[in-house]
């Protein structure tokens, strides 16, 4: 009995963790490069959820029926448009603040978050929205009677597989392309990289675009899986993804994925065995705890203060 629950929660935790990891990438890359918390990143995810539903409805109206084709097209369209949102956000709210006071970018990011939430609320309404289920079916493992089984839906499998593919592509891009190298150089030392001819503004834009598209992948997949969303979903998931990024070591890409998985598993097991009502409290307490006791996270290097 409890074995089945445990395995089921581990499965759910892995799925949740992949989602957190995908969003955490955006936090961790932006923090690594310009040292700010992009508070509006969770709302980028929310934008992606709305875009997914809108593109799905539009493509269905155009007469496309085959689910795989729909999924692929919606995913690509959402990624493209969300990336555009990420890029514009950086241009409007963060780029003018490169040399401003310490608090300015963060306050601007909070403003951006309010703008995105209210923009969607005003244009799409405050009520919760949904999409039809595209991916049906599931597999059952360890079946041992009518109530004793572990169920994995195809949508969950799709989430994990896509997350793995997405992260691998991103990792390959960072490690092997010229732009990826420039990114790493800017992360090490922005001024030096600029002196050596790296276009840092472009690198920063690219990082926002990549972070937003990863959040878009997460938004699209979750929308396909759960189907329901509103204009405020970005807030909680944003804090949790940020927790994942900190847990893994902010600035570290593998750390973001690892942190996501750890957080997803911990949260899912907590809600399976302790209490569902307090799972958000648990996640936030984890964030506070990690920041206090191990601010450099699992894979991050301890920071040496620059005097």
């Amino acid at each position, binding site marked *: 009995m409890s074995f089945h629950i445990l395995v089921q929660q581990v499965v759910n935790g892995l799925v949740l963790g992949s989602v957190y990891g995908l969003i955490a990438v955006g936090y961790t890359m932006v923090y690594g490069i310009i040292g700010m918390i992009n508070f509006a990143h969770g709302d980028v995810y929310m934008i992606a959820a709305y875009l997914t539903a809108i593109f799905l409805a539009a493509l269905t109206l155009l007469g496309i029926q085959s689910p795989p084709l729909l999924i692929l097209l919606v995913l690509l369209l959402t990624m493209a448009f969300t990336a555009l949102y990420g890029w514009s956000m950086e241009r409007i709210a963060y780029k003018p603040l490169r040399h401003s006071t310490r608090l300015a970018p963060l306050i601007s990011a909070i403003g951006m978050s309010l703008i995105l939430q209210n923009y969607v609320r005003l244009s799409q309404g405050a009520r919760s929205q949904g999409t039809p289920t595209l991916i049906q079916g599931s597999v059952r493992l360890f079946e041992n009677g009518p109530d004793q089984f572990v169920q994995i839906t195809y949508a969950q499998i799709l989430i994990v597989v896509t997350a793995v593919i997405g992260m691998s592509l991103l990792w390959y891009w960072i490690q092997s392309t010229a732009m990826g190298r420039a990114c790493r150089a800017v992360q090490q030392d922005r001024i030096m990289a600029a002196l050596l001819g790296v276009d840092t503004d472009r690198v920063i834009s690219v990082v926002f675009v990549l972070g937003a598209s990863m959040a878009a992948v997460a938004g699209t997949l979750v929308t396909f899986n759960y189907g329901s969303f509103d204009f405020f979903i970005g807030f909680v998931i944003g804090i949790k993804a940020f927790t994942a990024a900190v847990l893994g070591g902010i600035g570290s890409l593998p750390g973001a994925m690892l942190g996501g998985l750890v957080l997803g598993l911990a949260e899912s097991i907590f809600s399976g065995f302790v209490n569902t009502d307090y799972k958000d409290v648990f996640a936030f307490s984890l964030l506070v705890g990690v920041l206090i006791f191990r601010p450099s996270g699992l894979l991050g*290097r301890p920071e*040496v*203060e620059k*005097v």
Partner: protein
Amino acid sequence: MASLLTVHDLTMRFGGVLALNGVGFDVRRGSVTALIGPNGAGKTTVFNCLTGFYRPSSGAIRLTDADGVSVDLIEILGGPFRRQDLRSPRAFGRRLYCKMFGGAALAARAGVVRTFQNIRLFKEMTAFENLLVAQRARVNNNLLAGLLSTRAYRDAEAEARERAWYWLDFFRLAEDGNRLAGELAYGRQRRLEIARAMCAGPRLLCLDEPAAGLNPNETRELSEWILSLRRGHGVTVCLIEHDMGLVMEISDQVVVLDHGQVIASGRPEKVRDNPVVLEAYLGVPEEEGR
């Protein structure tokens, strides 16, 4: 003359990098000591250890004042708990206090005050306020006294203002008193930073490249100021400087660092002619060096 500061076998590791390796030197009371050496030799790291910003991997730094009372500048950074601490509640309490509140602030309270290579003023506050902030130890910090504006509080504030004016005058910054520190010209910011350090009542004044970015005139003024601080105000000065003219003119002792080690120390003219120092600065071709 007795030593104010003794540095013994100071070692500092950052990950795998050995930034300081067995650095040791003494600073006599009332002297001017210059730390010199090529870039990356570890001068600023020594400063950061002296002023409590870094905790060295090993070694000892001790500050002894004229009455013979001495402070361990490493203990106050709050090291890890030791077994002995459990036996003595006092030692335990002290370590706990240092762990919670320790670091550079306690080093400064012990009398080691510094300036920074890239000037760190309170830019959005006036020059005068910068100097008031520095007098933490001398003003009346009692919250209630301030709110009620008691006699003692007003007297302490008046005294603090007087001292701030004194140092503004000393560094010829009086006309800039009510301007924002961030708006002052570069050379004036450097002076204000030294004035601020003096307001904190230092026993050891650590200046990190005080002449960087100053023109020859300003540098000459600076050397006069440093000398008169030592003569007239009983301050011991320790400075990092690249301007050899300034170093040779004002220092009693020069300590040369290279690759995290002291390669020479002594009177300026002695150090200047030391072949090892010349080699470190100018480099010597391989075949001649071996």
